[in-house]
């Protein structure tokens, strides 16, 4: 199946080359697309010099808008499977096939690479895990489905969801909201165990000072997402 790896990238000049080389070595059969979200450092020069496949957002859209541009690209160019992978080296391309497998087999519409199933590798800070757990519990309460690693940006989805995401995708902190949108619309979402690294460069899109605001916003967005997406609109 035609597979596209979408790599959102904002000021990742230190890590992007390693990430792409790693991806090419581990998964030469897949296409990739780097979404340069108006980086202010040398990222664009590096992408150009290396002849990578990339798009440039003319304005900074944030992680959600950037990834959505990738989904739009995947929708336009007829990809069957799209995989999101961070540009900072957190996600190991070794696990790519593992994340894709359940989507390819049709078991899930979206498969999320989860660091909390086998609890190996970088487990992030206590506060971060606490926040992730709150989001996870809220999703459980709203949809009846337990997703452990709600903020994981390592996820694969099928053609139906590529089209769905090309049309609706949250802006600022989209990972939990995308899970909610999928579940509320009746898509099958599941997790597969992966091991994540600590980021090699760049800054997380979730910074400590803004985390309280982040939590409030995500919780509100999840509740709104529960109300606004219905099985009639999308899904099966």
């Amino acid at each position, binding site marked *: 199946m035609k597979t596209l790896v979408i790599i959102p990238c904002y000021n990742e000049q230190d890590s992007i080359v390693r990430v792409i080389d790693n991806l090419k070595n581990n998964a030469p059969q897949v296409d990739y697309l780097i979404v340069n979200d108006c980086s202010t450092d040398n990222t664009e020069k590096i992408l150009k010099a290396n002849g990578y496949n990339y798009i440039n*957002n*003319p*304005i900074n*859209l944030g992680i959600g808008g950037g990834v959505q541009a990738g989904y739009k690209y995947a929708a*336009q160019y007829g990809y069957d499977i799209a995989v999101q992978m961070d540009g900072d080296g957190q996600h190991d391309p070794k696990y790519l096939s593992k994340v894709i497998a359940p989507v390819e087999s049709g078991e899930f519409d979206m498969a999320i690479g989860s660091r909390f199933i086998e609890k190996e590798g970088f487990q992030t800070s206590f506060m971060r895990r606490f926040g992730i757990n709150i989001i996870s519990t809220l999703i459980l309460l709203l949809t009846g489905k337990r997703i452990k690693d709600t903020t994981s940006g390592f996820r694969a989805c099928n053609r139906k969801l590529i089209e769905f995401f090309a049309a609706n995708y949250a802006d600022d902190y989209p990972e939990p909201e995308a899970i909610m949108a999928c579940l509320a619309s009746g898509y099958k979402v599941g997790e597969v165990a992966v091991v994540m690294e600590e980021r090699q460069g760049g800054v997380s899109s979730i910074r400590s000072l803004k985390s309280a605001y982040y939590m409030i916003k995500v919780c509100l967005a999840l509740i709104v997402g529960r109300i606004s997406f219905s099985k009639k609109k999308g899904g099966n």
Partner: protein
Amino acid sequence: MMKPINFSLHAILIIGAVGFLLFILYLMKKGKLEVKYSIIWLAFSLCMIIFACFPYTVLVLNDIAGVIDPVNFIFFTQIIFILLILLSVSAVISGFSKKIKQLAQANAILEKRVRELEEKMDK
């Protein structure tokens, strides 16, 4: 019983309300205010004109609503309008930000095509 409204105050209120309506119409005529965003402003200004021309309506509505001071009733009405207008502005901005995002994404994908075409032509 309320004492009748002071003549010069009455005049100022009417001139102010009508002037406001004329300003809205002027902006619409100049194309600086789109019809779909002007409706709530027109309703607001018409309401103020009615209140200014016929203060009696305020007294009646005031008694119906059970507000102690008529001026509070006017403030209340205005605040409701302002809140509605602010909310509609937020909604309009949300719509714009969505459209800007879509434009940027379409532009990014196009830019890639153009870049690749140029590279091909240069070869």
